[in-house]
């Protein structure tokens, strides 16, 4: 529960000694309440007061670690306000009732590729308990054996949970199963095995009370489950939990949320893709699906990569030669910058043209063409240097190089630096490339 400045002020020394660097105790306390200053800045606060307040002045949403993966720690509701810090994770669900559980586990590792420097794969296995304890423990072992993935044990039965935990304790799975009925037992297990505990309840009010109760038992290593009753309820859970934490600094809800899209739209792959999109934008930290094929993965991972980009830092692609439409050493070359958006738009248009073309991405600091040019990062000498370092002339026999139309002014200088090449000025907008390349051919 957040404290107001005045509540803190009541506990302060009220001496206006200015040792904290703020003119008055009142002003200091207001700043502490806003999270602008730590309470420890005041040398005269009693230890008991600090203990009481440090809780209230902690970050609004906890960062929870599962294996190599980090969730939560968000401080804003919209990415433009600052940035989102922990990308959401995708999980695939299997259960001990699935005849094809082994196949699903094998299938889930098939989506594994790189996009702009980020590895795209399903990070977690969500192992749901359907009633067969021995089969469940075996399945948990198999899930834990999938390399590089974290496991979520989705099980509400303490006895089964303990057996599964014991079997895969080194994997440090999430124990997703604290309900109003079993909270004490499940909490004891989570503490014993040192794992994150997942909390479940039917309503927001009940979830809040249960989370407060488990916090009261001393456990703050939690994740919360969105409702699986309906899509609307799941969305409401995800939004209200995040909003309570970040906007209203209600720390009881300051935990990551699991959304079980597999349960919300069982058997409907397309709907699960839609739900994954919705919850990637709005506040799911773990999104569980029945499976993840390339059709789903390509848009979803692209979306996630976009949403979790730091607005302050442009996304960059690796400099190099990108042969498109089956281009080889005899195909024409086009050069542009390493700003990811530029790369995608330009490569997309070239692909649409169907004309074989070597797209040359030069290091321009991740700026767009005009910005890079203005900053001196796309110039005749930067292009010449790139040609040298990459040994373009040695790798490609064709001697035609298309320059972005927006830097037509560079033509003369580039021609001077690369005298063997025929420098051609391309269109100013990528969308004109299709026509340009077709005409040129």
């Amino acid at each position, binding site marked *: 529960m957040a404290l107001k400045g005045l509540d803190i002020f009541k506990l302060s020394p009220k001496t206006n000694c200015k040792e904290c660097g703020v003119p008055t105790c*009142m002003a200091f306390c207001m700043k502490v309440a*806003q999270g602008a200053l730590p309470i420890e800045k005041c040398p005269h606060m009693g230890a008991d007061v600090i203990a009481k307040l440090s809780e209230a002045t902690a970050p609004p949403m906890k960062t929870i670690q599962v294996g190599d993966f980090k969730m939560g720690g968000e401080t804003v509701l919209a990415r433009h306000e600052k940035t989102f810090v922990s990308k959401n994770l995708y999980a695939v669900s299997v259960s001990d009732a699935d005849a094809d559980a082994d196949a699903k586990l094998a299938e889930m590792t098939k989506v594994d590729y790189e996009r702009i420097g980020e590895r795209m794969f399903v990070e977690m296995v969500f192992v749901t308990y359907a009633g067969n304890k021995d089969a469940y423990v075996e399945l948990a072992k198999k899930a834990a054996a999938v390399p590089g993935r974290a496991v979520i044990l989705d099980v509400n039965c303490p006895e089964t949970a303990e057996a599964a935990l014991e079997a895969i304790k080194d994997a440090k799975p999430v124990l997703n199963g604290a309900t109003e009925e079993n909270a004490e037992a499940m909490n004891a297990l989570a503490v014993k095995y040192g794992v994150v505990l997942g909390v479940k309840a039917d309503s927001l009010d009940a979830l809040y009370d249960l989370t407060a109760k488990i916090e009261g038992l001393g456990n703050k290593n939690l994740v919360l489950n969105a409702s699986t009753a309906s899509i609307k309820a799941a969305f409401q859970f995800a939004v209200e939990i995040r909003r309570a934490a970040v906007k209203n600094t209600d720390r009881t809800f300051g935990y990551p949320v699991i959304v079980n899209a597999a349960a919300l739209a069982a058997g409907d792959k397309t709907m699960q893709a839609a739900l994954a999109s919705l919850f990637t934008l709005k506040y799911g930290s773990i999104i569980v699906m029945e499976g993840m094929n390339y059709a789903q993965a390509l848009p979803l991972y692209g979306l996630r990569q976009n949403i979790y980009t730091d607005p302050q830092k442009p996304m960059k692609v690796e400099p190099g030669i990108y042969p498109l439409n089956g281009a080889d050493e005899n195909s024409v070359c086009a050069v542009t910058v390493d700003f990811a958006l530029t790369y995608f738009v330009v490569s997309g248009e070239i692909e649409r043209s169907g004309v074989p073309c070597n797209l040359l991405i030069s290091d321009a600091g991740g700026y767009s063409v005009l910005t890079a040019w203005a900053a001196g990062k796309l110039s005749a000498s930067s292009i010449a240097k790139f040609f040298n370092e990459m040994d373009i002339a040695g790798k490609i026999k064709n001697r035609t190089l298309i320059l972005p139309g927006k830097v037509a002014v560079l033509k003369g200088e580039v021609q001077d630096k690369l005298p063997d090449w025929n420098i051609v000025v391309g269109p100013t907008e990528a969308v004109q490339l299709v026509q340009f390349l077709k005409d040129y051919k």
Partner: protein
Amino acid sequence: MAKFITIGERIHCISPSIREAMATRNPEPILKRAKEQLDAGATYLDVNIGPAENDGEELMKWAVTLLQSEFDNVPLCLDTANKKAIEAGISVYNRSKGKPIVNSADAGDRIENIDLAAANDAIVIALCSAHGIAADNDERMMHCQNMLERGMSLGMEETDLWFDPLFLVVKGMQDKQMEVLEAIKMFSEMGLNTTGGLSNNSNGMPKNIRPIMDSAMIAMAMMQGMTSAIVNPCDQRLMETIKSCDVLKNNVLYADSYLDL
């Protein structure tokens, strides 16, 4: 951040035509000045009926009803030393466009206007002075604390007390200007709202200079986090400055036509 709030000051009984209109309950001059100010972009209108010791209650009710019915429940700032008149005004006030503002309380004799605002769920302008101008920012902060504690103990939201550091006249108190601006920054960093009678700083200056001085002052005050001011909205330079500062502060989205909006 919210857009800067301008409180139009031109319905004031110090103006002979307004005083006359109020005395005779003649709507026209009042509506004319209200329209001018709203067209120029004022958010709130200040309604100063003077001390109005005799017929204050009836006069304030008349003025509130007149302005709100004519101008789509325009939010108003009720400005008089007569507390009963303020309460009467609030009793007929429509809140759909914003809470009424009580103008004003201080940390001295007029501190009870905070109680009045609290009892009526109104905003109150809280002058950081008790008896005369505060000597320094320590005194301003002390007054601020006193009034804030009083308001909050009565259940007010802290953001409903709009602290007025009191702008000081440059011709005479030039060396105190930065201190006023620093006070605004302190209030702002505490998350509090601020306001004040801006034009006081340019009192006594030639007419053609005042808009320039007022514009510079408002820009500096907005930089310090000031959230509203009592101004003459018909001062075009001033309003253009405020709109520009609102853009720079990201309070309002920029568009090429931003000055027309």
